[in-house]
Structures are given as structure tokens and as C-alpha cells.
């Protein structure tokens, strides 16, 4: 390290001497209090509905939701981002309000933070109190100047990657010294490897918002030369397999705490935080000294529940060296796919022939192709089956100096291959069982389809049946062609472009009434599915009027005049061309009409006499109480029906449960019908406890008038009583 940088480090030390505990946290700029949420388990977050004008299909939504999900899947922490999906909240844009934490795209520089040419891609303003409690935080994307993508469009920033990083700040985390961490302070367009959290990110949350029991390794970074403390060392714990597990920044006294560790054996390294991530990448107040070289300083075995102190460790850090691996303009992390050797280059200094390069995981083979003092080019090979994670690169000079680039390698699987789905078309109503075929599907995969996320193992999510098969049941979705995206938990994804279509595929379950007067004017209700605005109805090719889409499952229309006959084809057609058909007949006589039901109530025991007035009744009329007004189905037929004349029916009510019921009048032969919802109320009889049962107002007060009016009914009832189990034809005779 240069003396200049040493000076910088010393200055930084003067700024704040407060302890920098495990991981790097955002801190209050003036008093050093870590910034944190006071109720971390319920950090509300709202994805603003408008989204990015680069993504008119709304695909910003699942991208940001997946970023939220990445943080929420961290274990050992109470922190959780709770998405508020209410339309009212999503419609808001007042990100400065404390009561809403928005993720939004500022397309017009309404925030004032993104003037033309600012070069700012995204920011996360964080409001805080003196004690460090965060009162508000929001993520703003500069939609005015930059292009964003959720589908790997070239030269555009990946929404999910950027959102995952910014959400880390929203939660109170600062930058990480790990090249593979989500909180790594460099990103290029189209980079997606920061979508998934690294161990350092997860331990950062564990340290900030702990939950459960874990082990902590505490110790102190000292110099081998004189035993003095080293502040701001980038301390990293590697597990027995050589994988990066946890990180910490030593404090001004050299102390560190590697928290959130599961049971196991760990090796602790200390490295200077200089390149590619340096002190300047952190916020103010952190003490960082870098005049030493990477050194394995301790090892420990922990039980996963208690803390272990390694003190000053087995070795102090070695003296500074000009030998260095990694620069901030290197494209990091290096992606390595098990079973697929890959070639990479890293910059640095002193990278001369005679040096050696190795991975911290001994399963990895590193073959150096060239040393060029400032650049080393090498091939990395990892055997098939290697688990995901991060691996250090350790460079050793011919003179024995070391430089470790922590978490430089990110082990990820190949992108899933998505061949397509069966079926490839489904109704917008949802409920279609899909099978997605391809390769490289792993447990925990998420399918993104029409801006819905189907995560493996979630209720209503998807099921990874095997490497080549995922199944799911669709949710109600927006019509159109959609990519079928399978995203691996590591963040890499496969995509079959425009491979799936959600369409309005109308279906007809019922038509009521199924027949109407040829003179037209019959109001017809069609029950089914996928009725969308713009849907038309034709009968025998003739367009019908008054179409109302009450819902996706109910359509109403009014018949136009037609020639009597049928059944004709009734066809429903959506604007997207989907059709469904049923039958409808036109009758020469007018439809029955219902005017009044008197009395309008009776007992649940039934047996009440009721007069129905209207028009166009015929002797074959049937009366049903409680039928579904939309379909004419269900209900209970009247015990008896007396056709008085074409405008009057007298019926005996059936026994029914209490409540207001429809009254349906149906002409049996023509199938024409009329229904009146809630036209008759069945009431439970009085308990007799002093209550007063009022006689129906429509009943005649003069018993003799009543006798005259109801004489035919009484005769019919007498006949019924005389002949128990009277066959149906007798009823016809009454009529």
C-alpha cells in the first residue's frame, strides 16, 4: 500500500473510532449509529404501478418482486420486506412521505434527482433519526436517462439486479467487499449475478436484525511484525470446503465479529480493503487501513449456537506488498459453471510469471494461461455437481506475497433451457394446468409468466417435477403473448420468447332463458367464462344488442327480432377472436311477464297461497321459488300451480329456508321464462312468545270475499288431500 493510502486510512480513523461490527452497515454520518428499521419484520414496500416506460408490459413488477424475495429468503434474520399490493398504494408517487416506501421509476425527473446527463442510474434516499432508526427509504430508478430491462435486452440495466442492490441499502446495508455480493459496488448493464444474495449479504441482515441462534467467531486482526491492531481489514470466513461464508470489517481496535455462522470448521482470512472495493466505496465513518497483505489469521470450529474467540489468531497479517489481484474495472464476479471450463482475466499489479493462482475451494482447477504483470488470464474448471456459492481467488507471487480476491468466483448453474409449455394457450381466467419443459430446472426455481411469479414450493406456485419439467396452474392473467421464464435461485434464467398466450377463451355454461319471443326484447343472461369488454353476441348470425359484460363470467344481452324457430346457434365472440356457442330459440308468442307476487312473504313451512300477476302466462306454466336468477337453475317448484288466466297464477308455496327468494315463471313448452329476484320472502314461524304475526296485507279481509276468490284453489287442495301421492297428470287436470 502506498503512503498516500495509509494517510487516507489514518484520516478515516480520525473520523470515527466506533466499532465496525460484523459486516458493513450504513451508519449515521455524524454519530455513527447504525441505520436500522425499528420494526424490521414488517418493512412495508410498494412497487409503484406505472413502472418503467421501457417495460410497458409491466415486467418491472415481477423483477422487483423477485428482488424483494431474494432479501426475504435470507434466513436467521427478522427482517422482511412486506409488499403492499393495494391498488391505492401502488398508485401513489409521493415517495417523500414517511408512510410509504416506494420503488418507482422517475421518468420525468419529478424527483429532481435525475436531471438530464446526471449519470445517476438509481438512488436510495434513506431518512433517519439521530438514534439511527430509519423513518423512510425509497428506491428511485432514473427512467428519464436510462434503459431498463427485465428480459436481458442489450445495453440496458437489469431491473432485478439493480433493485436487489438498492433494497439492500433500504434495509440498512452498506457496500460489501465481496465481488460476488449483491452489495458489491460495481455493476454493468445486463449483469444478473447480484440478483441472488451472497453469504456476506445474508450475514449482514443476520447481524442487523438477528433471529435464532448462530455462532460468532470473534478475534482481532494484528500485524505479524509488531502485534499492532489492523483497522478496517476485510475479514472473511471460509468453510471447510473453501467457500466464502461470512464477512466482517475489523474496527479501529482490530476487533472483528463474524456472526451468523452455522456449525462447522472455518478458516479466517484478513485482506486489505483496497481493490477492487476500497474504503471510498463505503460511507463515511468506517476505519480502513490497508497496508498489509492477505493472510489466513485463524481457524475455528463452532457449534452453530455459541461464540468462539480466536483472539489474535495463529498469525498476524503479513507486511504490505505491491502484489495485488483485482481492479475495480474488472468485470466481477467471475461466473463459473460446474463442468464447463471458462476463461477469465483479472487486472492487478506484480502479476508476473512465476506467480501462482488458486481457488479457495480445492475442487476447482485453475490453469493460468498468461501472466502479464498487470493482467493474468486463466481457465477455471469446476467439476459437475459443485454447489452454488462464492470462492476466493488466491494469487501468490514468486516471492511468496499473497493477494486474495474474496468471492471473486460465483458458482452458478447454466441458464435453464426453456423449450415451451403445454398447453401453449390458456384462458385469462386462470386455472389451466401447465407443464413447462426444458432442462436445467432446479428446486427453488421460479417461473415468471404474464408478470406472475410461480415459485417452487409456494402455495399457488410451481412444482419442479424434475430437471426437465415444471408444472403449475395458471392464475388469472392479462391476455397477450408472454415469455415463459424460468429463473434459477441463483438469478440466472432461461426464457422462451413469446411462447405462451393468455387469451380470452369464452365458454358458455348456461343461457337463460334459452328461448325468447321472436318479436325481440328478451333480456338474456349468459353464464360462462372469459367475457371481456367488446364481446359480441350473434344468434343465427344476427348481431344482438344491449350487450353488457357484468363480469368475466356473466354477459347479458337483449334479443333482436327474428323469425320464430330454432334452436339457433347463439355465438359469443371476444375481440381477440375467441368464440363459444350455445342454443337459443325464438318463439311466436310473447315472453311471460311477472308483475307482482302477493302476498310477498310466507312461512318456511310452505303451503301459503300466493297470487302471481303478470302477462303471457300459459296453462303449461311452471313456478319455481328460489331459482338462480342468472341461470334459472335450482330452486323448488311450487307445490301447486293454478292457471287462472294469462295474467294470473295462484300457487301454493313449497317449504324453503328463511330468506328472500326469487320467483321464476317458466313456460314448459316454449322454454320462455321470467324471473324476479327476491320476490318472495320465506319467514320462520313466530315462536309464540308474545310476538304478533301480521296477516299478509294482500289477503282479503272479508272471509267470504276470500272464499270466493280462492275457491278454485281450495277445491284443488281438497282434491290433493283426498288423494295422497297424487300422480302428476292429476295436476294437469287441475289446470
Amino acid at each position, binding site marked *: 500500500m502506498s503512503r498516500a493510502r495509509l494517510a487516507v486510512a489514518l484520516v478515516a480513523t480520525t473520523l470515527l473510532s466506533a466499532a465496525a461490527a460484523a459486516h458493513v452497515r450504513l451508519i449515521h454520518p455524524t454519530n455513527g449509529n447504525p441505520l436500522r428499521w425499528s420494526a424490521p419484520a414488517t418493512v412495508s414496500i410498494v412497487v409503484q404501478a406505472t413502472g418503467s416506460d421501457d417495460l410497458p408490459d409491466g415486467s418491472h413488477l415481477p423483477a422487483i418482486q423477485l428482488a424483494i424475495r431474494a432479501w426475504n429468503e435470507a434466513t436467521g434474520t427478522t427482517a422482511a420486506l412486506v409488499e403492499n399490493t393495494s391498488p391505492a398504494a401502488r398508485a401513489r408517487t409521493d415517495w417523500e412521505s414517511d408512510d410509504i416506501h416506494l420503488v418507482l421509476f422517475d421518468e420525468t425527473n419529478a424527483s429532481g434527482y435525475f436531471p*438530464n446527463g446526471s449519470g445517476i442510474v438509481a438512488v436510495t434516499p434513506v*431518512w433517519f433519526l439521530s438514534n439511527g432508526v430509519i423513518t423512510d427509504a425509497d428506491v428511485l430508478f432514473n427512467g428519464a436517462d436510462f434503459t431498463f430491462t427485465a428480459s436481458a435486452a442489450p445495453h440496458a440495466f437489469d431491473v432485478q439486479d439493480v433493485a436487489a442492490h438498492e433494497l439492500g441499502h433500504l434495509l440498512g446495508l452498506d457496500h460489501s467487499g465481496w465481488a460476488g455480493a449483491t452489495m458489491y459496488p460495481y455493476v454493468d448493464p445486463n449483469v444478473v449475478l447480484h440478483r441472488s444474495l451472497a453469504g456476506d449479504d445474508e450475514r449482514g441482515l443476520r447481524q442487523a436484525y438477528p433471529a435464532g441462534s448462530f455462532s460468532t467467531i470473534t478475534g482481532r486482526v494484528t500485524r505479524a511484525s509488531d502485534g499492532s491492531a489492523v483497522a478496517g481489514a476485510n475479514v472473511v470466513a471460509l468453510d471447510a470446503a473453501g467457500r466464502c461464508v461470512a464477512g466482517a470489517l475489523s474496527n479501529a481496535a482490530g476487533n472483528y465479529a463474524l456472526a451468523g455462522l452455522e456449525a462447522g470448521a472455518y478458516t479466517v482470512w484478513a485482506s486489505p480493503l483496497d*481493490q477492487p472495493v476500497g474504503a471510498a466505496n463505503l460511507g463515511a465513518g468506517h476505519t480502513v487501513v490497508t497496508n498489509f497483505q492477505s493472510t489466513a489469521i485463524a481457524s475455528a470450529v463452532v457449534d452453530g449456537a455459541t461464540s468462539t474467540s480466536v483472539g489474535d489468531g495463529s498469525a498476524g497479517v503479513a507486511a504490505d506488498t505491491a502484489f495485488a489481484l483485482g481492479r475495480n474495472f474488472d468485470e466481477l464476479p467471475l461466473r463459473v459453471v460446474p463442468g464447463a471450463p471458462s476463461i477469465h482475466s483479472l487486472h492487478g499489479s506484480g502479476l508476473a510469471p512465476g506467480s501462482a493462482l488458486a481457488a479457495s475451494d480445492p475442487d476447482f482447477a485453475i490453469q493460468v494461461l498468461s501472466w502479464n504483470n498487470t493482467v493474468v488470464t486463466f481457465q477455471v474448471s469446476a467439476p459437475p455437481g459443485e454447489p452454488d456459492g462464492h470462492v476466493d481467488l488466491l494469487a501468490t507471487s514468486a516471492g511468496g506475497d499473497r493477494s486474495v480476491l474474496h468471492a471473486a468466483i460465483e458458482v452458478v448453474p447454466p441458464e435453464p433451457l426453456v423449450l415451451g409449455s403445454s398447453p401453449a394457450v390458456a384462458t385469462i381466467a386462470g386455472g389451466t394446468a401447465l407443464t413447462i419443459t426444458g432442462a436445467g430446472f432446479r428446486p427453488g426455481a421460479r417461473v415468471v409468466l404474464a408478470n406472475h411469479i410461480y415459485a417452487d414450493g409456494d402455495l399457488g406456485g410451481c412444482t419442479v417435477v424434475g430437471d426437465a419439467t415444471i408444472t403449475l396452474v395458471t392464475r388469472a392473467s392479462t391476455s397477450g403473448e408472454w415469455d415463459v421464464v424460468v429463473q434459477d435461485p441463483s438469478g440466472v434464467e432461461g426464457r422462451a420468447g413469446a411462447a405462451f398466450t393468455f387469451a380470452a377463451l369464452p365458454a358458455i355454461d348456461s343461457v337463460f332463458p334459452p328461448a325468447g319471443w321472436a318479436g325481440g326484447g328478451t333480456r338474456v343472461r349468459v353464464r360462462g367464462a372469459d367475457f371481456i369488454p367488446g364481446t359480441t353476441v350473434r344468434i343465427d348470425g344476427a348481431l344482438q344488442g344491449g350487450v353488457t359484460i357484468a363480469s368475466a363470467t356473466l354477459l347479458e344481452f337483449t334479443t333482436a327480432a327474428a323469425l320464430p324457430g330454432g334452436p339457433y346457434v347463439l355465438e359469443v365472440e371476444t375481440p381477440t377472436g375467441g368464440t363459444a356457442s350455445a342454443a337459443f330459440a325464438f318463439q311466436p308468442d310473447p315472453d311471460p311477464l311477472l308483475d307482482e307476487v302477493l302476498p310477498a312473504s310466507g312461512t318456511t313451512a310452505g303451503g301459503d297461497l300466493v297470487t302471481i300477476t303478470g302477462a303471457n302466462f300459459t296453462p303449461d306454466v311452471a313456478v319455481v321459488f328460489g331459482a338462480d336468477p342468472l341461470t334459472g337453475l335450482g330452486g323448488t317448484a311450487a307445490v301447486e300451480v293454478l292457471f287462472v288466466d294469462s295474467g294470473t297464477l295462484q300457487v301454493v308455496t313449497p317449504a324453503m329456508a328463511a330468506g328472500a327468494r326469487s320467483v321464476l315463471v317458466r313456460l314448459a313448452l316454449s322454454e320462455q321464462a321470467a324471473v324476479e329476484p327476491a320476490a318472495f320472502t320465506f319467514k320462520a314461524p313466530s315462536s309464540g312468545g308474545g310476538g304478533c304475526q301480521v296477516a299478509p296485507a294482500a289477503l282479503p279481509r272479508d272471509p267470504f270475499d276470500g272464499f270466493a276468490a280462492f275457491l278454485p284453489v281450495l277445491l284443488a287442495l281438497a282434491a290433493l288431500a283426498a288423494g295422497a301421492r297424487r300422480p302428476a297428470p292429476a295436476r294437469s287436470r287441475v289446470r
Partner: protein
Amino acid sequence: MRPIHGAALAAAVCAALCALRTHEVRAGTVLRLGLSDLAERADTAFEGRVVQARVLEPFAGRIETEYTILEQAVHVGGACAVRVVRFPGGVLPDGRGLAIAGMPSLAPGEDVLLFLSRESAQGLRMPVGLAQGALRVLTLPDGAKRLVGSSAGLRFASAAATAVPDGPGVDYVAGLAEIAAGVAARGTEARR
């Protein structure tokens, strides 16, 4: 690791950074911009001495720091003897604060070279590239000047470009040449 520089330079950098005591908090994702890029993008670019900094809360949800700067030289835009610019963010006397990712903080007494965007409707002028657009002008004991950049709190969105380095910075005269190139490029763009 970088080459070793003189002790005087280190001391000057040290002194400058001591004065900064930045309030910026982390992680705006920004493009990495060199001096010519900054000059090309800025609505105004000038050098001056910061004489006052005060934190304001013009209304709920906005905390801003207002800087008064005595202008010494102009590189882009018109001249103005006394500049008053406001950046979002800062810490109020009661400890409440607003951290805007990577927003630079200027300290009274320091000489700065600022590349600022057009003033927004809110009266703010954002430093181009956030902290990258606010450089310190250091005068070394031998009278030579250097421009010192900052990447504090920034997440860089492009690994390809070259930013003004932190720490020792760049030679002032060479830096001005880069700025001039950026200004010339602006003219070229305008003519197109």
C-alpha cells in the same frame, strides 16, 4: 496497488479529507465518468471556495444542504461571483437526516470543482455522477494543484470508463485539459 506518492501529497490529501467529514450515504448507482464526461454532461462547471454550508428542511420529506461558494473560475456556463447551490441530503441539528446515495458533502473552506446539472423545478442542482461531480482542488506545498475525485458511496454502473481517482487524484493542469476536451465535445454535439 498504486504507486507510492510523495509525503507532501499524502499530507495534503489527508488534510483535505479531514476537512470533508462527508455526510454522504452510499450507493447511488451511477455511470463512471471521467473529467471530459463530466464537462460534457454538466450544465455548469466552476471552481470556487465553499464559504458556508447549512442544512435546511424546506418541507417535510426534503432535507437539503445549501452551499455558498465564491466562484474562482468557470469551465462550463456563465460566470457568477457567488454561487448558492443546494444538494439533497444532510443532517439537521436535531440529528435527523436524509442520506442520498453517494451525494457529496462539501465543507466550508475547501476549494472545489463542481460539475452541476441544470437546476430542477425543486431548485436543486445535482452534481453530475453524484460524488464524481464534486472534486476537491488541492494545492500542494509546492504550489502545484491536484483534482481529487470521490467515489464514496457510489455503485458504479460501468466498468469501462475511467473516473477521476480517489486519493491522489490527477494533476490539475492535465485535468483542465480533459475538461476542455469535454467542453469541445459539447460544441461538437451542439453543431450536430
